[in-house]
Every structure is written in C-alpha cells, then in structure tokens.
C-alpha cells in the first residue's frame, strides 16, 4: 500500500513537531544527567528517545532511527562511567542532541522530507553504532502503526545503502517506497489554545447570525420561527447599523484568526535567559541576554527556525566571543558578558540581530582559514574585512581545531548560514575587534501581517509596507517639481535631489499623458527614490497571500490581498522596486512630448554603479580656501582620499587628467560654476556616470531644481555637510563606501 503525498506530508509535519518537543525534553534531561545520573531521569530520557526513534522508523528515516537508537544507548552508558568517561560521553550526548536539533529545525524551516545528510554524517561519526541490547531490542522495539509504517519510506532511507545503520529501521524502510516528495512542503501543524479557537468560533457564529438577520431585514422585515408578528420594514438607519455591526464582527474574526496563525515571539523564547546563563556557567563564564521584540508575531515555523538559529549563534558567541572573567577584567569590561537579541519584522521577513560585547571575530584566523580552503591566499587578501566575514558566513565552519561541548566544531554558524540561505533569507556578520560582534539574519515569513499604505497607479490598487515609505508628496500642477536631467528624472526633497520614477513605467506599463499627482518617497537599505502615483489612499492592515513564482516574499510583488470590495491589492517589495527602477531607468533624449519639465540633454546615463572601495577618491571643487581646507580635513579624517580644485575650470581639467570616484563641488565659483561644471561633465561620455554632489549655502527649491536640471545626483547644504552626510548621500546614489 502506498501513501498519498498529502498524507505523507501531514505525517512528516507531525513528526517534525513531535521531534522538536521531544528534543527540548531530551536537552533538559541531558542537563540533569550532566550533574547527576538519576535513574528516573535516565529512564525518562530513554523513553523519550525511544519514542522519537519509533516515529523516525515509522516514517522510513532509517538512518535517523539508528542514530536515535545510539543516542539512547549512549545515555544508558552514562550510568556505567567514571567521572572522566561520564564527561566525555555526556559531551557527545549533548552534541548529538544539538545536531539532531539542527536537523529537525532544518526540516521544519525547509519543509523537506529528509533529515539533512551532512548532519546525519556528523551524528554517525559522533556515535559509533552499537547493536541494540537485548533489553531495548525486545522490550522496547518500535511498533510503528501499520497504517504509517506501510506507506512511509523517506528519501533518507533510500540513500541508506548497505550501511549497517539501515538495519534497525529496515522493516519500516522496506515496507514501501514513499511517493515522490521532490519540492513538496511538509504540512504544518499549529498548536493553539482551545479557548482562542472557541472565541473565533463564537465570532463566526455571531457573524452568521448577523448575516441571516441582515438578509431578513433586506427581505422587508423580521419573521421568526416563533411566529412573531412581521415587523415593519427596517429603516435605512437600522440597515446601516446592522451592516456596521457585521463589518465589525468580520474584522474581529479576521483579527482573531490572524492571531491564531501568528504567534508572539515570546512563545518561542520562554526560559531562554536561564539557558544562556547556564551555558555560560558551563564554560566558566558569566553572561546575560536581553531580548527585544518578543511581542513580534510570526508564523510558528519561522519562529522555530529563528529560535534554533539564535541558539546556535548564542552558543558560538559564548564559546568563542565572550571572554573569561579574567580576560574581561583585563580588557576593562564588566565580568559578565552581554548579549542583546533584537527581533523585528521588516516587510515580509523576520530580522534577528544578535550583538555581543566579546572579543569580536578573529579576522586573521578567518583569513587564514579561507585561504587554506580556497588555496588562493592572494585572492583572500584582496578582500575587505566585511567581504571576508561575509564569505565566512556563507561558507560557514570554524577556525577552531578543538571540539567544544557547547558549540561543537563551530558548525553552528555554518548551519545558520545554510538555514538562512535555504529559506531564502540572508546573513551578515560584523565585527568590532576587541569590543564585540554582530550577526544579523533574516528569514522570510510564511504568514505575516503588514501595515501597508495603499495607493493607485494606472488603475491598479497597490500597497507598500508603511515603514518603507518615508513621505508622500503632492506634485504641483504639471509636475514642475520634477526635473529632467541627464541622470534621469529627479525631485528635490529637502536638501537632497533624489531619483524620480513613474511607477507605471517601473512596473512595465506604458505611461499615459496624464501626469501623476502624488509621489511616494521610499527608503530602504539600498537607497531612496520617489515614485509618481495617481492617488494615495490609507494605511490598512493585511495578511498578504503568496502565489509561488508570482507574488512571494522577495519578489517584486511580495504578496496579494483583497480589500473590502474585493479589489485585489498588490503589495510591492520596496527593495525590489528600487532595483527595478534603477534597471528600467529610461535613457533620456530630447523629447518635446515629455510631460516632465526641465532642461533636456542628450547625455543619458544610468545611475552611478554600486561599488566597494577602501579609500574612495573625492574631487573637491571649492573656491574658498578656508572652506576647502575644512572640507578636506573633514573628508580625510573619515578615510576619503581628496584631490582639490579651486574652481570649476580647474576641476574640469583635473577630472580629465584622472577620473575621481565622486565629485563634490561648490555651486558659486569663479571661471566656471558648479552647474556649468556639472553640465560639462555630463556631456562627456567618460564622466556621464560620475557621481556629482553639489554643495551650496543656498537652501531653496530653485537652486535644487537648477542642480537637478544640470544633472547632479544630490544637492547638499554646506552648513549641514559632514562626512556622515556625504557617506549617506553616496550610499543613496549607489556608491557604497566601506572602509
């Protein structure tokens, strides 16, 4: 008998949920067994491990079942050992549970019907297989339910080959071949308080009754089964009131069901602080953890994956980052290390930031390790520190030779990177030598609630997560606030000139003659830009739905929802939108029919390319010696290389000699002013893409418009200028500065 894929998927989901709970129990029991091998704890451990083994065997995870059998055997050996042997065996037991936890978390996060092979291999190395003892073979042999066992055989069991490990679960593994599960997700099971389901049910019942009543009202009166006299036709006010009540109930019901699906992060992190303190104590260290964002709500699967990833990273930080009390005292740090974990939802992702105040990543060792692995030290040496860390994050692994009880061989970072990557998320590392490190990872949320600003464009209803919308702008008649220059359309926002895009065009549509009346200014980590839209609506809460390959977290449209009248709301991904706008920015030409006013020029150019440079060269054109020197010192202090020009004409000549990375120019200068300089540079192919930032003491719209029309990328006010503002501006226009 074969099992259909939906049933198999449901059972795998149940197995994953059960395994997560069991491993939590086993970890707690293992901690007790570390201190004292009490028979009842040993018995509980064996029973829990055995139950999970049976479930694994029933689903056809033969090799995993064997590993669980070995875990059970190893736990029994704790009682027979002297102190040293006990310590060694317990360390292996703890590490095995850790690896099992990683694997199950991976299954939960990826939805795959297989325990990861690499982790299985590590477990097999860690736990040399011993045949089952008569006790466990006879008295506690797994008894898989026939309905499950006959239909289940997992990919992992098929790959078991002739290894002796496959023997334990052979009856189940041989029973039947599993249906193809390639790419199919495991059905998720959620556990929610019964009273919350009851509350939702009550709301649904009330809503159904309300709808029935409303229909009676509409039919012209109320006639009940109790033979009440037919009432007079209801007034408009009654109908309106009933409709409002119905809408209120529907909203409550929607909110109630959303809350059932989206759990607070707090539910996944109970007892985490104590766990960290205990782990630190086992390493002879002191540490505390502070968790922010426990009120963030996310789907259970994402939260579970995040919890596992955080646990790995915290263990790594405790083991490798946080110094011993003596080391911290010598470094003038408080004796207790401090970990800060922040959870937040950013658009359609859960973002987790973990900061520690330890010694930071050991960059020289990481470089050596990457050089060794790649066999190309020269290439590794050309990478900046952030690039080295990023490479290390994605390759994973450790620089440590020794195995630690807490963080093992350092596979934690590797596992976290793999989990983030497999789930479609990201991971970033940063280090502050001697003072700490930061790890940031994101996971796309399966289900999430979003506050979106709705707007319309070209007849379609669109939305953007409200946190990405910096402001809305009303465009004056004829869009005379929008300028057309060589870099494309721009609009002045405060002292900055930012790119302006017609949203319809960015989304692949054809722009009509009618001009957009509003602009949305979007800001993400990748930059800022304004988008012209027809109308701006209101902020509403929605639960976006995904359509694989069409609307999904990470796509240009990250989700779809329906508003009250059934209109489909397309929720855009701000980062993808900015990227699409940059890619689609049209080449400008003399176009008399262009709806946008401004000086036309034929020197079309794409936005400045993103780049990474350790010492960015700035050409600074400024006629005032004092101002020039102040700015030079200010920029050099921040690591920029600076070349100077006393006016626009000199700047033009010096740029021609050697192209800088960016030009910062005053506007009012003798011989050639900044606007003329900008126009000249834009007209030359070799400098058409040069990032140009104009500096002036003027803060008026006309000056900004003139700068934009000349083709400047940004417009900064001298009195507010500093290296930080410059850096932010460079980032915004696509020049990445990393020093």
């Amino acid at each position, binding site marked *: 008998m074969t099992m259909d*894929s939906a049933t198999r998927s449901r059972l795998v989901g149940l197995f994953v949920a059960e395994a997560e709970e069991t491993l939590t129990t086993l970890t707690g029991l293992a901690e007790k067994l570390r201190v004292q091998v009490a028979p009842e704890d040993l018995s509980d451990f064996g029973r829990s491990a055995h139950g999970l083994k049976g479930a694994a065997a029933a689903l056809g995870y033969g090799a995993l079942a064997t590993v669980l059998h070995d875990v059970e055997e190893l736990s029994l050996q704790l009682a027979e050992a002297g102190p040293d042997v006990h310590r060694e065996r317990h360390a292996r037991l703890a590490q095995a549970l850790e690896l099992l936890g990683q694997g199950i978390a991976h299954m939960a996060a990826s939805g795959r019907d297989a325990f990861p092979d690499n982790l299985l291999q590590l477990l097999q190395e860690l736990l040399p297989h011993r045949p089952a003892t008569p006790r466990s073979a006879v008295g506690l042999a797994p008894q898989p339910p026939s309905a499950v066992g006959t239909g289940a055989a997992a990919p992992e069991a098929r790959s078991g080959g002739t290894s002796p490990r496959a023997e334990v679960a052979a009856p189940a593994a041989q029973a039947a071949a599993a249906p*193809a599960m*390639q*790419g*199919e997700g495991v059905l998720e099971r959620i556990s929610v308080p019964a009273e919350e389901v009851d509350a939702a049910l009550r709301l649904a019942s009330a809503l159904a009754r309300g709808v029935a009543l409303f229909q009676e009202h509409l039919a012209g009166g109320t006639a009940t089964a109790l033979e009440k006299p037919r009432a007079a036709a209801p007034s408009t006010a009654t109908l309106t009131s009933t409709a409002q009540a119905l809408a209120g109930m*529907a909203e409550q019901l*929607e909110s109630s069901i959303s809350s059932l699906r989206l759990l607070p992060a707090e539910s996944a992190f109970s007892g985490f602080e104590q766990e960290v303190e205990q782990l630190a104590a086992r390493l002879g260290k002191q540490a505390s953890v502070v968790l922010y964002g426990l009120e963030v709500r996310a789907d259970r699967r994402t939260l579970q994956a995040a919890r596992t990833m955080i646990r790995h990273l915290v263990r790594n930080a405790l083991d490798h980052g946080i110094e011993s009390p003596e080391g911290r005292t010598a470094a003038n740090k408080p004796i207790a290390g401090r970990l800060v974990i922040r959870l937040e939802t950013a658009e359609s992702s859960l973002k987790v930031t973990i900061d520690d105040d330890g010694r930071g990543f050991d960059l020289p060792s990481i470089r050596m390790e990457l050089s060794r692995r790649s066999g190309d030290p020269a290439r590794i040496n050309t990478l900046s520190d952030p690039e080295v860390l990023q490479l290390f994050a994605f390759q994973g692994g450790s620089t440590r030779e020794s195995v630690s009880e807490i963080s093992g061989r350092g596979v934690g970072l590797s596992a976290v990177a793999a989990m983030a990557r497999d789930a479609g998320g990201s991971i970033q590392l940063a280090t502050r030598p001697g003072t700490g490190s930061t790890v940031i990872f994101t996971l796309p949320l399966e289900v999430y609630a979003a506050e979106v600003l709705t707007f319309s464009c070209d007849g*379609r209803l669109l939305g953007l997560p409200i946190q990405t919308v910096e402001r809305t702008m009303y465009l004056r008649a004829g869009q005379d606030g929008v300028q057309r220059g060589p870099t494309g359309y721009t609009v002045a926002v405060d002292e900055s000139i930012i790119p302006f895009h017609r949203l319809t065009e960015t*989304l*692949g549509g054809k722009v009509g003659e009618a001009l957009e009346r509003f602009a949305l200014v979007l800001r993400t980590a990748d930059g800022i830009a304004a988008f012209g839209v027809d109308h701006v609506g209101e902020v509403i809460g929605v639960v976006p*739905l*995904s*359509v*694989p*390959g*069409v*609307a999904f977290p990470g*796509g*240009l*449209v990250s989700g*779809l929802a*329906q508003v*009250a*009248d*059934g*209109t*489909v709301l*397309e929720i855009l991904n701000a980062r*993808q939108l900015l*990227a*699409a706008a940059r890619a689609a920015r049209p080449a400008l030409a003399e176009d008399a029919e262009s709806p946008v006013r401004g000086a036309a020029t034929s020197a079309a150019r794409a936005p400045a390319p993103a780049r990474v440079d350790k010492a960015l060269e700035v050409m600074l054109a400024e006629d005032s010696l004092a101002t020039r020197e102040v700015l030079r010192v200010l920029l050099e202090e921040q690591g920029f290389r600076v070349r100077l020009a006393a006016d626009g004409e000199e700047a033009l000549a010096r740029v021609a000699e050697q192209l800088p990375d960016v030009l910062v120019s005053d506007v009012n200068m003798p011989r050639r002013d900044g606007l003329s300089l900008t126009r000249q540079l834009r007209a030359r192919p070799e400098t058409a893409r040069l990032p140009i930032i104009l500096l002036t003491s003027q803060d008026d719209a006309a000056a900004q418009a003139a700068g934009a029309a000349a083709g400047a990328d940004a417009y900064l006010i001298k009195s507010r200028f500093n290296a930080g503002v410059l850096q932010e501006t460079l980032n915004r226009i696509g020049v990445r500065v990393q020093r």
Partner: protein
Amino acid sequence: MTTALVPPVNITPRNPEVLDRRARALAAGAAEAAGTDAAELLAVVLFKLHGLHCAVDMSAVARAVSRLDRVVSVPIAGGGERFVAFVEERPFPVVDLAEVGGRARAPEHLAQAPALILSFENGSVAVAVDGPLELAEESLVQLAQAGETSADPNSPRIRGRLPSGATHFDADWMLSWAAAAIT
C-alpha cells in the same frame, strides 16, 4: 473580504438515461453493474476552446469556476507579468488555454472566462477556458488519431472524442502544460 459572489457552475447531465440506469443499479445493490457502467463512462468537464467543444477528466479538476471575475496582472522582477485571480479568498495564477493554437486573452477578457483549477505537487493553477462549463458522464467513442497527438509539449495531447464530438484532452498533458506555463 470579497463581497462579489462567483456564480455556481452549471451542472447538466449529458446522458440522463445512463445516469438513471446507474442510479437504479446502485440502489439495488448491484455493485458489479455500477462497475461495468463506470468502466465505460468518463466523468468529464465540458468546455469550449476556440469555439470547439472540448472535455477533460473531472478527476484532474480540483474545482471549476464559472467566471474568474477579477484578474489582475502582477509584475515580475526582471520584467514581464503574470495573471492572478482570487477564488474564494485564495489567489491562483491564471493561464489561458486559448494560448494553445491561438493568442492569450487580455485580463479584462479573462475575467469573464470560466476556469478549471488544477492542482499539482507545487501548487495550483487556474486554467481559463471558454464556457459554458458542464459536467457530464460520457464514453470515449473514438480514440485519438496518430495525427492528433504530438511530441511538442505545447501541442495538446488528445485521448479521443466523445459521442457529442467533443475533443477529450489528456488530463496529464493539461496538468503539465499548466504547470509549465506558470514556471
């Protein structure tokens, strides 16, 4: 919340005599009689394509929708767009079967079209066809001729013809064509 209601599919028994005979046989407990008839009869969804009568096995259709009602085009990163329609609060990618041997319709035309919801391992898709949709039990009277099948995955695979003259599409082909069209 959607307020617009999708009208129900029109169910028309095409062969009432056969259905009546089967119902009587089943009521009399004659399982073998039902089995005999079932072997001869195909449960199909009838629809039209380019004005021609067509059919596909009902077992391949998770749901039939008499009108998609609202079809939106969703832009895709990197260019292009896909069509999506909501059916009972769930969004489905939409593909137009009229593309086979013809041109795909614009969203406003697709909104008026009936659709067959097909499910496969990685999701579901709404296949827009021409209506009206009808459910029927009919037998296959003529197997496909050699010239009616093609190795080209974009060319429809045909199992044969029904007594009404409707072309009976191979459900597996339709499923794989729809899956390919949305990926």
